[in-house]
């Protein structure tokens, strides 16, 4: 008897929040079976979220010589969900100096993900 592998996800496609069940008992070769969706968006979301969940991350880093103590930064693309905390930790000790332009790369290719950390606003030098 093969083990049942069923995982639960909450669809984020709309406020209905369908409870998706993803069955990957068959393994990756056969693809996963998603049930519980109310529309196609949910089916696709369930598959993606099960196979390769990815997230954007935004935080702020220390800045010297500016009006504020922090400047906001973001990932230029999504990173694997399981790396989000590590990505946040990788930038927490960075300190940059004003003036800063929106889009300035603060950290390139963070943790080898191919994604950069960039400033999300201009900040003038005081």
């Amino acid at each position, binding site marked *: 008897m093969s083990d049942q592998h069923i995982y639960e996800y909450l669809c*984020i496609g709309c*406020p*209905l929040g369908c409870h998706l069940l993803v069955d990957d008992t068959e393994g990756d070769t056969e693809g996963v079976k998603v049930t519980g969706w109310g529309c196609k968006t949910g089916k696709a979301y369930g598959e993606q979220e099960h196979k390769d969940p990815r997230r954007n991350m*935004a935080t*702020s880093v220390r800045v010297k010589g500016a009006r*504020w*103590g922090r400047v906001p930064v973001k990932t230029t693309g999504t990173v694997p969900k399981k790396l989000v905390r590590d990505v*946040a930790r990788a930038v927490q000790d960075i300190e940059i100096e004003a003036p800063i332009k929106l889009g300035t790369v603060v950290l390139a290719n963070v943790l080898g993900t191919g994604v950069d950390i960039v400033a999300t*606003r201009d900040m003038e030098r005081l």
Partner: protein
Amino acid sequence: MITAEPRHLESRYDVVIAGAGPAGMAAAMGARERGAEKILLIDREREAGGILWQCIHHGFGLIHFGTELTGPEYAQRCLQQVIDGGIDVLTDTYVYDISPERTLKLMSGTQGIKLVDAGAVVLAMGARERTRGAIRIGGERPSGVLTAGLAQKFVNMMGLLPGRRVVILGSGDIGLIMARRLTLEGVEVLGVFEIMPHANGLNRNVVQCLHDFDIPLHLSTTIVDIRGRERVTGVTVAPVDEAFKPDMSRAWDVDCDTVMLSIGLIPENELSRRINLRFDPVTTGPIVSSTMETTANGVFACGNVAHIHDLVDFVSRESLLAGRSAGEFATGKRPPADNIRLMPGDNVTYCVPQTVSSDREHTIYMRVKKPMEECTIKFGDIYSKKLPYVFPAEMVTIKMQAKFLQKFHGDTLRVDVVKRG
């Protein structure tokens, strides 16, 4: 930062806008588009842009700019348009009075106390957060109780942590976003407590801010007591029944040093109340016509001043209209007056604008009282539309064409949201 301080403050402007957040910035662009020449955008903060600077997360701009932006990126785009549009921006300035003749009294860090006459005025002051006083939680009055938006400013702009062990009351989007934000900064978020049986924020935020970090969401549960003499030392939480009465026999204690509140926003209308406007008791904002004009001639209102929005994109869209109307008013153009009043009926909390005109198309924003699936929205018997669902936390937006309104011959049109079948 991008600045555009006017070197010289004029005594008369075509359009003066109070508040340089997303609403005010879009209104300025609308006024410019419709031929207003001298436009003054005023903000009490030291930089224009409003609350967006501290909303550093993704999720803005998909509708207004067609691309996903963070809050600061959205603010900077708007501000760049304002500067390129040659609009005077006066920051560090408080508008503390307005007369029915549209003379504004300003108090400015750089200009002192000044009177400015306006051809048209746009009220775009936004909203503020509900505080502990608004919901009367019992207990002592220690430090360590703060709103989610204030915590957001501390963390994202000032680099200060509000505490080490945090409980969050209310599941509004800012609270959920801050649960994730604090977790990433190494703060322990012990749980989100929501008195309603459903989360108030987007599912996206429930999943990506709470589930991703194993932060528990306790529905139908609230804080009944806050303890601590100098600093918060803990709270007591309890499940509530359908009448929101706490069941103390099932209460439990949580040790924490911080209580963060995410319990809603209130339109900020102190300035609006200086003139004799009529207010909507439900939105608590001024009643507005289909051009976003208040009941005072040439005074317009938009954004969170008029009603609380869920998305900044809708604030920009509504405020662009308000600004266009203000620009037209200032240059002597007046569209035909509204002839139909919208009356909220079954399962409708409010409609904005509160009146419409049957000679043109309108975007009508509304909220419902309770969740409903498979429903129909009905405007009297002239128009109906099927909706797969409605939720109180999600604004309903309806595009209404003139040809439907022309079929209506009364003066009060009732709007209902009813279950199908």
